[in-house]
């Protein structure tokens, strides 16, 4: 790779990293999105701060009914964490869909969501999980909901000087089932459309439905109309199909070389249906 000249710092602590980032340095995590951009000279950061090696950002732990993931967890770690697999399998399942094994070994969850590629996989799951995202600056810390974090194509709630430091997802309740289904773009592996669904049944009814969608529009989102349509139904095939059909309604869909807006909307309904059926089958 022949990027433009840049400085590189690998600080020992998160505080040191945040101090440099406050001065305008750019965080480097797994480098799976940033390095290709630099290689093509589409990005020319003057100073890179390597946060990918910080132990402080690399943990997965359970605390008070929620799971806390350091932003530096690689996709592979998320995919294979026994804790996540047991208590929030949707996130592990989603991580397994990302790119190829090399990318999963290097790329991080923090980097993926900070980058906010409209076709990235995690956002669908994080929307469906109603995840919280902890943002830290040198002097600040705040927590935003996933629904308020992803703003637009490559645009997030991150302010200059802030990084994603932690992702918080709920421990799935007993009886819940979830699934992530995607059509992969054949060249890159990114989602043409990806849908994450979470369902909980209680007393023969769907007590809770959460649907997160990625790839369809400029940003990931929760398909609330479809969720509402499903809640308090018995979850029959017809009810699921009807709800799935609502996922793309009113959405201004992306269109590119790989899929037109019309096809994406169609796929969103198909994959929503598949994710919902799979999630339902997993509810106890």
């Amino acid at each position, binding site marked *: 790779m*022949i990027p433009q000249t840049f400085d590189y710092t690998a600080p020992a602590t998160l505080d040191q990293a945040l101090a440099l980032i406050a001065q305008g340095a750019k965080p480097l995590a797994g480098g799976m999105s940033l390095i290709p951009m630099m290689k093509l000279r589409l990005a020319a950061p003057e100073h890179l701060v390597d946060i990918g090696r910080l132990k402080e950002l690399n943990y997965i732990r359970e605390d008070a009914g929620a799971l806390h993931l350091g932003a530096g967890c690689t996709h592979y770690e998320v995919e294979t964490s026994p804790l996540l697999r047991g208590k929030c399998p949707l996130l592990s399942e989603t991580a397994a869909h990302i790119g190829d094994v090399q990318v999963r070994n290097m790329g991080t969850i923090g980097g993926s969501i900070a980058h906010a590629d409209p076709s990235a996989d995690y956002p669908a799951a994080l929307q469906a999980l109603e995840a919280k995202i902890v943002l830290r600056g040198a002097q600040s810390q705040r927590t935003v909901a996933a629904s308020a974090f992803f703003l637009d194509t490559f645009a997030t709630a991150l302010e200059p000087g802030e990084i994603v430091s932690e992702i918080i997802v709920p421990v799935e309740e007993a009886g819940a089932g979830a699934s992530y289904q995607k059509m992969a773009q054949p060249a890159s592996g990114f989602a043409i459309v990806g849908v994450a669904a979470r369902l909980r049944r209680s007393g023969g009814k769907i007590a809770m439905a959460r649907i997160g969608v990625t790839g369809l529009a400029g940003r990931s989102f929760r398909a609330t109309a479809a969720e509402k349509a499903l809640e308090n139904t018995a979850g029959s095939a017809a009810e699921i199909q009807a709800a799935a059909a609502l996922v793309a309604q009113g959405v201004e869909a992306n269109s590119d070389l790989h899929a037109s807006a019309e096809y994406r909307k169609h796929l969103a309904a*198909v994959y929503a249906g598949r994710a919902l059926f799979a999630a339902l089958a997993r509810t106890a």
Partner: protein
Amino acid sequence: MATTITRPKTLIGKAIRRREDPRLITGTATYVEDIKMPGMHYAVVVRSPHAAAKIRSIDTSKAAARPGVVAIFTGQDVSKVGPVPCGASLPGLRVPNHTILATDRVYYAGHPVAVVVATDRYIAADAADDVEVDWEVLKAVADPLKALEPGAPAVHPQWPDNKAFDFHQEHGDIDKAFAEADVIVKQRILSQRLIPTPMETRGVVAEWRAADRALNLYSSTQIPHLLRSMVAQMLGLEENRLRVVAPEVGGGFGCKLNVYAEEALMGFVAMKINKPVKWIETRRENYLTTIHGRGHVDDYELSAKRDGTITGIKLRIIQDLGAYHQLLTPAIPTLSVLMMPGLYKTQNIFADIVGVFTNCVPTDAYRGAGRPEATHGIERMVDILAAELKMDPAEIRLKNFVQPNEFPFPTATGLIYDSGDYAAPLKKALDIAEYEKLRREQSESRKQGRLMGIGMSAYGEICAFGPSPATPAGGWESATVKIEPSGKVTVLTGTSPHGQGEETTFAQIAADELGVDIDDVLVVHGDTALVQYGIGTFGSRATAVGGTAVYFALQDLKAKIKKFGAMLLNSDDVTLANGQCIDNKTGASKSVQEIAAASYRAMQLPPNTEPGMVSTHFWEPPNFTFPFGAHLVVTEVDRDTGAVKVVRYIAVDDCGNILNPLIVTGQVHGGVAQGIGQALYEQAVYDEAGQLITGELMDYAVPKAHMLPWIESDHTVTPTPVNPLGVKGVGEAGTIGCSPAVVNSVVDALSPLGVKHIDMPMTPEKIWKLIRSAQ
């Protein structure tokens, strides 16, 4: 010494592991990028972002001012360097002047306009960004059909119709065939533009030895000797002062069967700055400026009798040539015409080619080069005919095949098919698939509303290029075999393999013929200073032509071994077997190693015999070879999304004798992977302004391992009489047989919906739209 070694001739036909693999797998092979030289400089090429523009001026002052920048050259500076050569000639061919750097105008996005040379590659890249070109942007045309429309922007202003050539060939009585036909089927069939995508991009290191007036050029090429002759000519250098080395070459697929501007340009730069210089192509440059493949719009018509007998084929090819002719650009579609009858008997053909200039990178040879297009066309048409006649696609093929007793078979296009039993691989594929049962399964699955397809292709291809009268630069190949004084064997081959495994297969041939251990044989290639001369590796020729040259050099050497052996054994009746020269009367023997040593010591020489144990043979093939085979593909289409799943892939290939089944299977696998790439995923897309929008691997979908099916590879063996090894060639077969079988299968899956044809790549969206419009 009377030790008897029982070493029968056993290597040929065995699955010997590739001897080149350890260095490839451990990452220790030497590619151009791995070459380092003291004082090495780095070059970056400044390229046009526009597909068509005039250059008003180029300002290099800012770039030149960067510390570390040593030189910048533009089109004016290299005006004495000869044009990038086109080796193909056709009557009336228009050949644009293809200078190595643009002078006043650019013709495609990526067109080189300047080269920046610096002490390191980062400085060179930064400085290249600083070169300012004042462009007058012109209208471009990227689509060959639009380029043919009146009033289209002229790619080359001197030829406003954008035509480079018209080519016509016919045979038999096509009008009669069509007039008397019971049925005529027509279809437009596209073979999209593809990007070859070798793992290793191109790269050049040039080193000028001023004192010797000698240029060393290291290039990732398939044709070191041809490159030497042509670059020498471009640079005005005697070719014996130019040494070309193709070090490890990480794939070519035809795209390195070429002479590129950068090869001469780096030679020029090295000579100017008197320092070694390296240029390594980025992936993005590779996509923009290394040749693409295919780019056909084919209009087919087939005439036939009601019983399925094909009586005539009409074909009109519109070939997207791109902006220039690279080495073989205009010749590629003529290969499609040569192979247009496929494996079928018909003697009535009528073909037209229109070669069209577009503001795109040139097309040229890509794995199969002209034959995949032809095979795709005829094999689609046969299926369309079968559907029209409600015949089984296997039956219609069996009916029209050239029969085993008809060889050598003269085709309507002037070729002589060497040998074949075309029904054999098709029947074998049908057996493996349990065809009847599969069809029953299909009708069951259709009842359940599933879209299952069964498709096949029976392909023939032309390989072992080729007799010299039919091959522009010469079609022979050369080999030198030496037994060194120590008894070790060196094989120098003029073919320059780059992944095909000839370091293994040629060693097998030598070890068997001489009765020596395979580990005592070294195969050397790719260096014009070491290897006598050669043509190169392309057109599935390396083993059939280059291997045969090795075989004949070995025969000469064996005769010499016997002469020396007889002398040493004081016998006039000796046999050479298992590495021993044996006196048939006494049983006394001398080993090949002992004999070689004696031949160099030369204490005594047989009559009329030179010292040493070296033999060189240049072999001229009497004909091409014509491998064939049948592929059968089972697919299932997802009704909701249009996604195609290849459920089974059966490839039965006949490439003549098989020297090493492991390597043959590997070639089939790789070929099929690229065929599936074309059928389902790949397409080079230019927008209307001539911007390549599949400009990186993020958007150009080369299939990855998980996107490919398990390939059930099998063979029939029909040796060719063309060469003593009986081998035909297998490098391209997989690609050629694949795409029509996949498309036929998917069309079959969708046939209940009335779908008759689908163009490649069969993307899910395309299929979904077909399903939807049928509903």
